[in-house]
């Protein structure tokens, strides 16, 4: 598929507990708008186990055609099996655009798919639109850890893109929609690469997960100790939020590595991000800059974090955090 020959938009829909994952609804929303701009069809591919309900949801969210690989062996993600399904469908339907989520699955799958199809993938897109003249996909993505944004175009089809979580409006659900379901389970063969799974361990996180949190309280180097992070946890608990950290506290073991926010950690976009004693290194800011509202608490009025914050308190966090807790209580 070296030339611009593709037709239609194909969306890989991720499943969570047998239902469409939120990122899938966002991808269907973005895919639907692109398909409309192209005057072409929106189709979807679902890979997993026990997908009956999710297939109906996918149609209700706008897919005219749903390719389904439903098998107990597909319960968990494996690059081999999922890639086979994606490859089989893209070779058959020759889409112009393929969308996936910028999730552990999409991050792993999109580069492989692009390689196999002789095309390129653009990762972590924050905006997608069809160029009205060329009908090519214009993909806006972060570069330099989100300190800049680039708009790029891929010369070959399919144009593969992953979308950043919560960056695109989800599709509207409409139960009246009709769609065609195509079973492709037979296309999946036994994995070939020799990667085997020894075990899979769930590590339950206490409280709200960073990725799902509507409120995040994040601490920087200025917090100074693990005990300081416990105070941030108190504030987070009152706000029903989660605690994040910049890189230095994680390196110092005041916070867990899984709490790191920034280009080397997690990219988050909560409704409210409270940066406490955070200086505002560019790599951290790029991990939280798409939050709806950013609050900075720092005693240094020149701290870079105030450049991206909506509201600021210039004071010692050790006084401000207890004050916030007591005012909220």
């Amino acid at each position, binding site marked *: 598929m070296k030339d611009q020959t593709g037709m239609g938009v194909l969306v890989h829909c991720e499943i969570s507990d047998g239902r469409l994952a939120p990122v899938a609804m966002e991808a269907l929303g973005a895919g639907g708008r692109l398909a409309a701009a192209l005057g072409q069809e929106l189709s979807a591919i679902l890979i997993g186990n026990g997908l009956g309900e999710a297939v109906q949801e996918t149609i209700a969210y706008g897919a005219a055609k749903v390719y389904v690989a439903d098998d107990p062996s597909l319960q968990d993600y494996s690059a081999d099996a999922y890639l086979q399904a994606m490859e089989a469908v893209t070779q058959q339907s020759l889409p112009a655009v393929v969308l996936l989520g910028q999730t552990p699955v999409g*991050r792993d799958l999109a580069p492989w798919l692009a*390689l196999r199809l002789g*095309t390129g993938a653009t990762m972590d897109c924050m905006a997608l639109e069809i160029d009205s003249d060329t009908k090519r996909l214009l993909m806006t993505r972060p570069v330099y850890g989100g300190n800049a944004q680039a708009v*790029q175009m891929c010369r070959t089809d399919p144009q593969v893109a992953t979308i950043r979580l919560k960056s695109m409006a989800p599709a509207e659900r409409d139960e009246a929609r009709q769609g065609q379901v195509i079973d492709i389970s037979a296309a999946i063969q036994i994995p070939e690469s020799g990667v085997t799974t020894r075990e899979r361990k769930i590590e339950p996180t206490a409280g709200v997960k960073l990725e799902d949190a509507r409120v995040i309280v994040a601490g920087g180097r200025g917090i100074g100790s693990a005990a300081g992070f416990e105070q941030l946890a108190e504030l987070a608990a009152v706000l029903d939020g989660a605690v994040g950290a910049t890189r230095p506290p994680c390196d110092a073991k005041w916070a867990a590595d899984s709490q790191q926010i920034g280009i080397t950690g997690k990219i988050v976009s909560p409704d409210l991000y409270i940066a406490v004693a955070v200086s505002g*290194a*560019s790599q951290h800011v790029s991990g939280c800059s798409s939050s709806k509202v950013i609050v*900075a608490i720092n005693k240094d009025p020149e701290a870079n974090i105030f*450049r991206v914050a909506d509201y600021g308190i210039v004071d010692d966090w050790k006084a401000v955090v207890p004050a916030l807790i007591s005012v909220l209580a």
Partner: protein
Amino acid sequence: MTVGRISCISESSEIWSEAELKNIIVCMKQVLDPEIPLSLFRIDPEARIAIPPKATPPVLSPFDESALEAALQIKDAKDATITVISLGKKLVKAVVTASLAAGADQLVLLQDAAFDEFDTGLTASAIATAIGKLGPYDLILCGLQAADTNTGQVGTRIAGLLGIPCITAARKVGLEDDKVVVERSLPDGYEVLEVPCPAVVTTTYEVGSLREPGLEAFMSVGQKPITTWSAADLGLELGDTNRFEMLTMETPVHEGQCEILEGAGVEQKAEQLLARLRETKVI
């Protein structure tokens, strides 16, 4: 798969295979320091590239530092040779040799003005070609993504070109006999995967920060081999054009100014903040 491995006899072991020297390749990119303050970050919108601030030397991409740390952790436990490959238009010796100071054994620099225009596919093909030239290997480690371009595709593409598997987002990497064993991060935990050597593995920051160079390793940098190859040395055909066209680059404009909440004491400031947050309905 691997042929012609160097074997040696270890005094502590009677089993020959245990003493096999493992060849680990680590791909490390030189990038603009992602820890610079936001106020120093500037781009040239015409050239669509960042302008490095004065007196701010580039660094090795933090993700790639974690890849080297993963390699060093393997080397802590068994005999291994670590070869670092860095590709770029203009590599700064003091920056790229940091890998040798941290404990890598040799450095291969792929340096050519043409590399500036490379997309992930071309970059991967240059690195895969260099790896082919270097001889047998057991494990190739790359960072999850580069800290500048953020694409996260080079590792997968190297694997694809070499016809070997790739496991992404590893938080721990080990070598057991002829297998790579990887703990792969998942949103709600992790999975343990194994794959026969050779394979590509990409690492996350969860591997840990790159260790500080020991005095011995630091002093021995000058004795470690550094090889430089150009595009011509690799026999790359440069007719291949970049698959992507970058149309614009800009720095996001943050809407509105930061409102600093004033008050006689922290209580008043806290109250004002919460009032604003309730107005905007985020709490």
